[in-house]
């Protein structure tokens, strides 16, 4: 982190902005570090999940389950969901690549596919919720299960909304073009983060 970061990322500046400010602040322009800010926020967000995971693992280690309850969960649907979410990370990556290459129609298509996969994941989660044999307050494991998957589901929902916004912006034009695509990159970073959290969650909640 020793870089002094002047004009680090001129590519991200729209041409019109550059000419507006070039005369006044030629020596003071700086790179666009909104993504850096988002990444820092995701570290914080990740710590929230880390706290939840730590709580869950400790509960499992020291608090015995009541008789008649089990940690066993139906695996088929969550596994399909995991695959869906992992694929969606690749499709989002593809959308970003197409956008940077200037192929906006293709980018929009891949965004739509990603959003669709996110919606499938959420639908799968709902189906799972309705078929579970336990409710929120049944026992400690049930509560933790709903808290963890629910908090993650909230993140996925936000991600799908972000994807919809980015896709609409691309459609209207002017934003998320080959030269200026912060919104898309931010949504992509966030989506990969949510995806990564799910993989950990799947591992400790379903497989462990």
């Amino acid at each position: 982190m020793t870089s002094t970061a002047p004009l680090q990322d001129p590519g991200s500046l729209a041409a019109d902005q550059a000419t507006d400010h070039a005369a006044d602040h030629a020596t003071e322009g700086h790179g666009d570090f909104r993504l850096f800010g988002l990444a820092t926020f995701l570290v914080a967000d990740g710590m929230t999940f880390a706290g939840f995971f730590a709580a869950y693992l400790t509960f499992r280690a020291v608090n015995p389950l009541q008789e008649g309850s089990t940690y066993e969960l139906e695996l088929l649907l969550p596994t399909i969901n995991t695959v869906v979410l992992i694929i969606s990370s690749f499709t989002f990556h593809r959308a970003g690549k197409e956008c940077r290459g200037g192929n906006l129609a293709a980018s929009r298509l891949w965004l739509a596919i990603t959003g669709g996969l996110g919606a499938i994941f959420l639908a799968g989660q709902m189906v799972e919720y309705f078929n579970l044999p336990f409710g929120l307050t049944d026992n400690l494991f049930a509560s933790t299960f709903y808290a963890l998957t629910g908090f993650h589901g909230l993140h996925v929902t936000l991600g799908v909304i972000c994807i919809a916004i980015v896709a609409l912006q691309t459609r209207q034009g002017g934003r998320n073009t080959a030269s200026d695509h912060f919104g898309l990159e931010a949504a992509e970073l966030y989506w990969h983060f949510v995806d990564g959290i799910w993989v950990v969650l799947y591992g400790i909640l379903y497989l462990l």
Partner: protein
Amino acid sequence: MTLANPSDFNGSLQPQGWLRYFSFSLDHKVIGLQYLVCGFVFYLIGGALAGAIRTELATPLSDFMPRDTYNEVLTLHGTVMIFLWIVPVVNGAFGNYLIPFYVGARDMAFPRLNAVAFWLIPPAGILLISSYFIAGAAAQSGWTAYPPLSLTTPAAGQVVWILSVLLLGGSSIFGGINFIATILKLRRPGLKLMQLPMYCWAMLGTSILVVLSTPVLAGTLILLSFDIIAHTGFFNPALGGNVVVYQHLFWFYSHPAVYIMVLPAFGLVSEILPVHARKPLFGYTTMVYSIMAIVFLGLIVWAHHMFTSGTPPWMRLFFTIATSFIAVPTGIKFFNWLATLWGGKIALNSAMLFSCAFIVNFVFGGITGVALAQVPFDIHVHDTYFVVGHFHYIVYGGTVFVIFGSLYHWYPKFTGRLLNEDLGRLHFLLTFIGFNLCFAPQHWLGLNGMPRRVAEYDPTFTTLNQVSSVGALLMAISTLPLLINVVVTAINGKVAGDNPWNALTPEWLTSSPPPVENWIGEAPLVTEPYGYGQHQEVPQEVQA
């Protein structure tokens, strides 16, 4: 490029004059002063609550207010002072005002996020205090909100408390992200990290702690609110839950929170001492590494708050050793401050008096801290007034003294006028005597077994409690000369000039108060912020 360039917004859209302090201003200096004034209002409220506590404790009987009210007052006092006064002021106020100057920038990295972070605070504060009137009862479980206590006290007030702390935590995280981005990414070209004033390092370390630990508290409080509202059993033993997990998660934030409150004070005092002693800051590099060591160690010592919570022996051993280690980097900083003063041309003005008193108070609080880290001693004094005394020596004797010192030091920069020195010394004298009178006796009370958070106590403790209450009264009185000073000098004070202290740090190399974008023309490149006594003592080495 538009992000850190407030000129786009400060033209016709932003209000000018005093009105801008009540607006969604994007100017870091306006936001800094908003934090400062808002925090000070909450300090007065928290102080009034402390006054109520000390009045109750002036007699052994619970005769001043009902016991439930005492618990509410005690909870509000702790929450207001920590989350609405110390954290916002020592981070938000001085951080926002100074950090952009120190990195040679015209504003923070994310000005809009900065304004959002500030404007979360007043509603959160109003929400918290109004819970006493609206929800029927404010939270009664202390600032720690330990379950099952927080599950059995009236629910509405506790939920409002959680909401308020979540808002304040969000504000804190946004601020932390902004400081990290500003310090690491927004530095003026040519300015190296190891040339930054020490307060930047303190704020970088603090912000790392904020970003890593505050979200854990947020998650924990969300689970606690589930326990209260939806009757889940995360922390409710009656429903198979585990209270110790709450304590672990809570202290994973709240121990670093002590460093979130005190590291910025370390930074501020490192700015004040060299200026008024006319000497370079001693041991810059060791100071930087000490801060980073404190950040790292601060994250792995939380369970020393839980030595009586059934902690297994290996855990006690680990946390005792790790906690004792913190004394090393802290000691390095302490001796560096002494070495900075050693042989200096010390001007004992109000800023310096408060800073030197900080060193004295803090070393006392630090020593009792090391004592508390030792399991046998901790078990003896756990949950007694010894802990209350120790804690206030750190946060009041440490941080609040530095906030006052910083006010005297930077007030000329904020307003262009100097605070009155006579009133300043009176303020210092009353605060210093009042503070020590109030909190030193609490160590003896604790050692003799007086528990904390009680409205009634054994009559044998009466004398020391009355001494403590007299100290609290002096502290309350000490606010008057400060308030008079701030108001009168703002209107009619001695004009300070741009750089009344002949300081070398960048905020003094512009007019007082500074223009909207900090500098007319280019930001100066200050590579030796502490070059006192080495060259001429006027800022000559400033390059264009």
